[in-house]
């Protein structure tokens, strides 16, 4: 097959998925009753002037034209879709109905995107590192207490709902011990002035700790169990016996030989579970009032701010598709069966 052919097939797949997501997003937000092109709730609102409504109707492509009285001639579904399609491709999500600023600027300048990336980044890295390390050792000590203990713990933490763990952490660490703050990204009195950089980093870490801990705890379990399973398979192979016979240290055998060959499913799974990671991030952000994209989606639902909801849904789906593509590419690069076929 070769790497190039594989890559092209995967890219075509990605494009199809993108189109599907765009159509789905359109169907939910434009076709379902009560949404009508993101401005249904504005039509009834007495504080929205006719001029504003007029402008929005053009922007969102709801009207194909205006009759002599200035009233809207509803556009056909096809027309609506083409306007919507162009908007999605160019990332023009319109303006947030709550704040009046464009959705994109609300996302970036208020630091929401950065906050979510920070939380996700730290959690993913830590969950991967911990999960893989513990999984390798659990596979090496199969059947012993270390192994069964960590398997039980991983199964338990995967069974616990994320928000419950978050609430327990707030209960224990904020209410009973008072070690960490219970929510937010930065202290509220920073509005008046930000302390010097070293204090700033420490305080930010303090605020980051509990949400990152919650999210990490939710994801290391899956990595651990998968690593243990694949390593278990890899360790039964003959070349491991050879490596040990050669006198290599157990650590070299485990990490340089077994893990490298076992890493394929782990890597692909890590990329594929990005979708679940985003879901977990939404919940964690809500529990800890962490001002990121997930919390924004949640608030937008309360405000019935449809442009934001639409944008968030699209972006999240986009991230999942991108993660899948990345996973496919990495898979193609690492798995020699694809390269040399």
């Amino acid at each position, binding site marked *: 097959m070769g790497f190039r052919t594989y890559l092209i097939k995967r890219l075509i797949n990605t494009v199809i998925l993108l189109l599907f997501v765009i159509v789905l997003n359109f169907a939910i937000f434009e076709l379902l009753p009560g949404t009508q092109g993101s401005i249904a709730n504005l039509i009834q609102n007495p504080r929205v002037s006719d001029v504003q409504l007029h402008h929005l109707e053009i922007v969102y492509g709801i009207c194909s034209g205006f009759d002599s009285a200035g009233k809207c001639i509803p556009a056909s579904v096809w027309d609506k879709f083409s306007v919507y399609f162009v908007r999605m491709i160019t990332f023009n999500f319109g303006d947030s109905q709550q704040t009046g600023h464009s959705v994109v600027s609300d996302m970036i300048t208020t630091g929401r995107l950065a906050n979510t990336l920070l939380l996700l980044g730290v959690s993913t890295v830590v969950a991967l590192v911990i999960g893989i390390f513990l999984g390798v050792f659990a596979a090496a000590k199969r059947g012993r207490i270390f192994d069964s203990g960590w398997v039980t713990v991983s199964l*338990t933490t995967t069974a616990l709902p994320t928000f419950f763990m978050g609430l327990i952490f707030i209960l224990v660490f904020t209410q009973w011990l008072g070690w960490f703050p219970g929510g937010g990204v930065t202290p509220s009195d920073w509005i008046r002035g930000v302390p010097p950089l070293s204090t700033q980093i420490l305080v930010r870490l303090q605020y980051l700790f509990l949400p990152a801990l919650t999210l990490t705890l939710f994801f290391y379990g899956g990595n651990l169990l998968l690593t243990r399973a694949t390593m278990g398979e890899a360790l039964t192979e003959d070349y491991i016996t050879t490596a040990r016979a050669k006198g290599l240290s157990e650590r070299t055998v485990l990490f340089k030989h077994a893990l490298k060959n076992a890493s394929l499913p782990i890597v692909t799974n890590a990329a594929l579970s990005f979708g679940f990671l985003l879901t977990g991030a939404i919940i964690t952000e809500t*529990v800890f009032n962490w001002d990121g994209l997930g919390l924004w989606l949640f608030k937008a639902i309360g405000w019935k701010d449809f442009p934001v909801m639409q944008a968030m849904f699209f972006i999240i789906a986009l991230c999942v598709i991108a993660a899948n593509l990345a996973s496919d590419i990495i898979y193609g690069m690492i798995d020699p069966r694809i390269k040399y076929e």
Partner: protein
Amino acid sequence: MPFWLVRLKNFLAILLKNKLAATGFFFLVFFIFLAIAAPLLTPYNPSGSVVSGKFDAPDWVTVVNGPSGYSKNIAFPGLSINQSGSGLNVVASGQTPTSVNLHIVSGGQAGTVQLLESLTYPYLGSPRSISGLANLVVSGLNNPFTVNVYLERVGEAKINLWYPTVINATRTYAPNPAIDSALGAFNTQLGLPSSGVIDAASYLFAPRAANYNYVMQFAVPSSFSGTIKVTQFSMTLLGTTWGILGTDSGGHDIFTQIVYGARLSLIVGLVATGISIGFGLIIGLMAGYLGKIVDEVLMRFTDMLLVIPNLPLLIVLVATIGPSLLYIILFLGFFGWQGFARVVRSQVLSLRERPFIEAAKASGAGTGYILVRHVFPNIVSLTYVSLALSVPAAIVGEAALSFLGLGDPTTITWGQMLQRADQAGINTANLAWWWIIPPGVAIALISLSFILLGYAMDEMFNPRLRRRR
């Protein structure tokens, strides 16, 4: 003994040898018991009666922390009638512990008639809230009289709850503001801030054992004649501890909510999984067996659904269509079948080439017959793990939706309990641990039981794993 029962017994015997499976099985049976026996385990309705004060800790906290600072529900017992003043004729009829009809005639002198309820308050903590009733129906007056309700801490203080009021007309009377510690006006009347740390309950009832008299006093002038029907004279004190698991922000019993929540969780988990497995089986069977084009189309469709992030879509759909348990179950079921369909498909693909299928085809069997009678029994063993993993996913999914506030408001599921606990505590940074820990632990245990059972059954029945050994 019927054959199927023997098979079940053998199956259970093998299953329970695995320690993890036995644990899972035990928890599952426990929750099914909770679900079925809910009305027997608790006399209360989950959404209904206020059983005690708000935010009550569980009863057994007094064992751990000591009794000081805690109190339980208690009410003033029945009333007795006293009178003073010569020439006063009081006829009492229809006396119950909380009501009595009085016909009072006074002679040449004024006098007083008292209804008295006495309570020995045994607890070392103030009550959470108090509410007292003092309702009169007056008739046949020839002169006005004065009514007064007060609380007396014997030997210490006497506090007016219903200030002396002149009654001169034939109608019903009740104190205004009502004797209720939750009312701001009542607190203000006592000289306390309308809402704050010290409320009427802790002001009136000291956090120690003491004797209290709850008195309604009628002061009648001379030459008075009238009928006073006291329709309700009682005071209830709601304590600060209650029951096995305490109460929530509305005073409802949490144990009841947990027990009834088991039903909802099991229903959500099993029905959603039923939909997932049914769908997944059909699609996987068709894709695997009917081959080429059908396979390609169905697998593309499955891939597309796999890519959509579940929770955001569920959030958005529920936000637009509206929260209802039925929709939630349908959505959860609809997003659970993809993985299972793939597994079924790959197994069917490998089964398709087996000689017994070929033989069946040669005998003239149709596609449907082959699918149902030959293919299906060989993939049932694959359903175990999916079943075991889908159920917790559905339960936790519903809990997550409820936690985000999108659950069905007419039901009280464990997820909704967590949402309410979070909402109630979030502003004061004061989370009630007895409200948060039980539902979360319940969700975790029920998920864990399904996961353990699923893994155990997979180890036993999955043909692929068996081959490797």
